[in-house]
């Protein structure tokens, strides 16, 4: 091992791998955010998943919730559903397709990327959304995750 590290080629590969890992880790954070006037200050990952899957229509304090969704294809959306909800993009589509088909639910409206989600969450009473860690600002309240 010591000999390997001494060789410049292996050292460069190791350094590159470490850098890639650090970059991935740094960009991996997702924060669940809410309108600053919400009556709750935090929610669990399970509650967040149920809210975004349409299974929970009210926040833990009983107030109605409005979901502000990212558009399909956003990396933060894939990350949120992978880590918090436990669904791949195709599983998520299949989930909503079955609900729409049976009349049991309608997927939340998609607003765009982090900027649009922040704007709508901050202006809509009872709104909840998610953005990448780095996009969080003071216009919203962090309910789960974040830096």
């Amino acid at each position: 091992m010591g000999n390997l590290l001494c060789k410049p080629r292996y050292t460069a590969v190791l350094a590159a791998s470490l850098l890639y890992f650090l970059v991935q880790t740094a960009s991996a954070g997702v924060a669940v955010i809410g309108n600053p006037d919400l009556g709750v200050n935090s929610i669990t990952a399970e509650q967040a998943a149920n809210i975004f899957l349409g299974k929970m229509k009210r926040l833990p304090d009983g107030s109605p919730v409005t979901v502000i969704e990212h558009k399909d294809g956003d990396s933060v959306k894939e990350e949120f559903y992978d880590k918090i909800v436990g669904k791949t993009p195709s599983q998520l589509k299949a989930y909503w397709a079955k609900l729409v088909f049976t009349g049991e639910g309608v997927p939340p409206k998609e607003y765009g990327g982090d900027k649009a989600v922040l704007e709508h969450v901050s202006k809509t009473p009872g709104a909840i959304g998610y953005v990448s860690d780095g996009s969080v600002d003071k216009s919203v309240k962090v309910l789960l995750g974040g830096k």
Partner: protein
Amino acid sequence: MISNKYLALFGLTLAAGFPAAQAVDFGAFGDISYQGSTVDNSANHFAVGQFDLYGTQKIDPKTRAFFEIVFEDPGDGYVLDVERLNLTRDITPNFSVSMGRYHNPIGYWNTAYHHGAIIQDTVLRPTFLDFEDGEGAILPTHIIGVMGAGKVSMASGDLKYMLTVGNGSSINTDTTSSDGRSEIDVHITNDNQDKKMVVGNATFKMSRLPLEFGVFALHDPFSESGSGGYSGVGTSSDLISMRVMGGYFRYAAHGLDVTGETYNFENEDKSPLTKAGKNKASAYYVQAGYRVTDKFKTIYRFENVDFLSKDPYFRYLGTPEGSRHVVDLRYDLDDTNALKFEVARFEPVDASKKSYTFYALQWAFLML
């Protein structure tokens, strides 16, 4: 029945519409199976099932449109059926009004499961909930009319209700006379008479228990759509006044789900020939499923249909009276496709008729 020319035209129209209609959510369901039965002279065969295409869009902030069309071959060539086409307007966050063609809101199964085979656990629906052209059909499973639907949320749970008024059904008893059975016609673009079908359904889903239960009622003034030579009533005249009341429940927790429904009929015969008066009948099923693993599930269902032999309604339809045991093994390859193996045994009440076993391996899928 439609020709290949119209199918091609329809396909081109859809293909042209997709790029421009980005906001419409389209999806499709399909299934392919290998099946057979112990009925005399029946051969095992592969079968392409229904191909179901649906789309929905919120066309303004309070109004959404939904369509569902099905391509299927009932045995004499492909047909295209508009299964559902409706517009829904949200009046308040908890009450909406809609118009169009729906699945009739009777009971649980007909409300929860539609034509997409992957959605229901078993290969076949309960026999008595067959669609109108099915061999076991005894109910109008579709309705064309207006619907009010709402929800009342309480601490103990959610109460959902639906009230629908639509075209009355009819039966062409000339077909019974010639083929031994007729189909229920739910009248998509017209009606035989001014009397309408009325259906109500209320469901309560408990918040503290994984249990929901409901009640429903239906009144359908069946008319004669044939010449009336067999039934003795004139064309478009009253044939049968059908009243159905029933209840259902569903429990689902820890991988176990149990569903049961009961339908209690009172059919009033309007024929001056048979003069059978009011006749009671019943149909029910109980189904239990257990998810052994995330992907593997076992299901058992018992169904029963019971009616009086003097009731002309079931004679017009050629309904088989008896019970059926259904066993299914289901393996979900993914959220988008599943394999189902089913064995169903039908035991007729009439000893002169033979019992038989149906078996099928079905691969059902969802396209997004």
